[in-house]
């Protein structure tokens, strides 16, 4: 019961002091808003990139052609060697006849081309599925090093470019987000410092009459929480509506059919929840720093 009363008082005091130090509180709230908006955008982008990468991983395969004189035993050995490699999902055998049929079906002009040969001019092959697109290059090189391999390849350039762009976006956003979080926490620390200073008489009396340390610190930590929470309102609204509208405008695709966005429902509420929690966390972090540094009790 006592604890609830003290928490209740702390909330009242926190709101009061947000308004008492209005300009600095506003600066902290705005800074939190900007930070959280950036975090929200980064998260939305990062999750979508992850999603796209996952679907690319399912599409991307390495095609391995065996040398013409490769025997069945060679094929068996190559299959087991490939499947023993790290990050390889499976290697599926595809004979030259299967290729021939498939190509003929795809385009009848191949049919006449094949007819001009006595023998099937194609090669037996493996289609290799990987677990992680980042290891495509390594696996391909390892396969090339095996015996009786004519060639091994995947859609190298397009994938590499996309992956390196994704990687770059990831790194840049991480750096921006971390710096923004620090700046915000610092600003909140200073806001709370001002509150501590403006309430130093009150704190002195509280200590004198026997408030526990927790009861003295609580209002400041809750003030940080309130600042963080107020700062998260606008980002949450913008994130939810922004993403839903964007998704509908784009019909769920970016540029090509292959790249689909994550459907907004649940996903965007999940992001909003993270943003809100992060706002409260940054606020409390900032105020805890201030309390530790400036509230000598």
């Amino acid at each position, binding site marked *: *019961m*006592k*604890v609830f*009363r*003290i928490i209740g*008082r702390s909330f009242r005091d926190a709101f009061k002091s947000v308004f008492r130090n209005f300009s600095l509180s506003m600066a902290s709230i705005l800074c939190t808003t900007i930070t959280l908006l950036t975090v929200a955008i980064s998260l939305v982008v990062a999750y979508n990139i992850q999603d796209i990468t996952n679907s690319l991983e399912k599409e991307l395969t390495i095609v391995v052609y065996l040398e013409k004189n490769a025997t069945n035993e060679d094929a068996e050995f190559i299959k087991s060697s490939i499947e023993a490699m790290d990050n390889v999902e499976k290697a599926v055998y595809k004979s030259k006849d299967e290729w021939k049929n498939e190509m003929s079906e795809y385009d009848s002009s191949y049919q006449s081309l094949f007819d001009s040969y006595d023998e099937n001019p194609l090669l037996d092959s493996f289609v290799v599925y990987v677990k992680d697109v980042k290891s495509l290059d390594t696996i391909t090189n390892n396969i090339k090093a095996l015996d009786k391999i004519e060639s091994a390849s995947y859609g190298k350039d397009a994938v590499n470019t996309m992956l390196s762009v994704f990687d770059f976006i990831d790194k840049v956003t991480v750096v921006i987000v971390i710096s923004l979080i620090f700046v915000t926490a610092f600003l909140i620390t200073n806001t709370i410092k001002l509150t501590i200073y403006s309430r130093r*008489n*009150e704190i*002195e*009396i*509280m*200590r*004198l*009459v*026997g*408030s*526990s*340390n927790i*009861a003295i610190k609580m209002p400041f930590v809750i003030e940080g929480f309130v600042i963080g929470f107020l700062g998260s309102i606008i980002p949450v609204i913008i994130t939810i509506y922004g993403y839903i509208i964007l998704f509908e405008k784009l019909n769920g695709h970016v540029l090509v059919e292959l790249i689909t966005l994550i459907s907004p429902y649940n996903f965007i509420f999940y992001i909003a929840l993270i943003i809100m929690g992060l706002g409260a966390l940054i606020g409390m972090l900032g105020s805890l720093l201030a309390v530790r540094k400036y509230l000598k*009790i």
Partner: protein
Amino acid sequence: MKFIELKNVNKTYSTGVTALADLSVEIDKGEFVFVIGHTASGKSTFIKMLYREEKPTKGSVIVGGINVAKLRNRKVYKLRRKIGVVFQDFKLLPKLTVYENVAFALECLGTSAKDIRPKVMKAIEIVGLKEKIRSFPHQLSGGEQQRVCIARAIVNEPKLLICDEPTGNLDPETSKDIMKVIDNINKDLKTTVIMATHDKEIVNRMKKRVLLIEHGVLTGDYLKGSYKSHEGV
């Protein structure tokens, strides 16, 4: 065990000043004790030992069964809840009324709203400030402000009331009234009172036990009524 027990207490501040030297004294429940001495003799330091504003460098301080010297910072509040403290400067919150200033002490401790009101009203009545309950500190005289502080100090019904020159800023007439209030608290509520003061007239008139501190040493312990101003300060 006595209510308050100081044994061989030494206090040397970080500046190297020794404010108390080998001081031992015992005080019973319900006593009224003056602490006198020249300026810088160590009166305030003695007082600060009792509510753990300062820790002794050596020796032990026991207040109401609590070993103050060994009390951890985190636990100091437990001691403070048993003690009321009044200073020379009033330390009231300027934006709160008389009632709110007194109630503040209880709110800090998480007392429920329905318990706060009767306790606050009783304390304000004891110090005789019922008519000014809605006034703000700046609307009160010095004596009235000190009454508010006393009300705040006793609102939680402490066993011990500590005063460091409570009349230091007041004229002789007002001081007299304040002393009457403190004396009544001692008599009616059986609250132990320890008061540091410069004011010889008050000490002579009230005929209480007197502790004389000189250069940090307890040089006199005069039992009730036996102190005459010519003997010491």
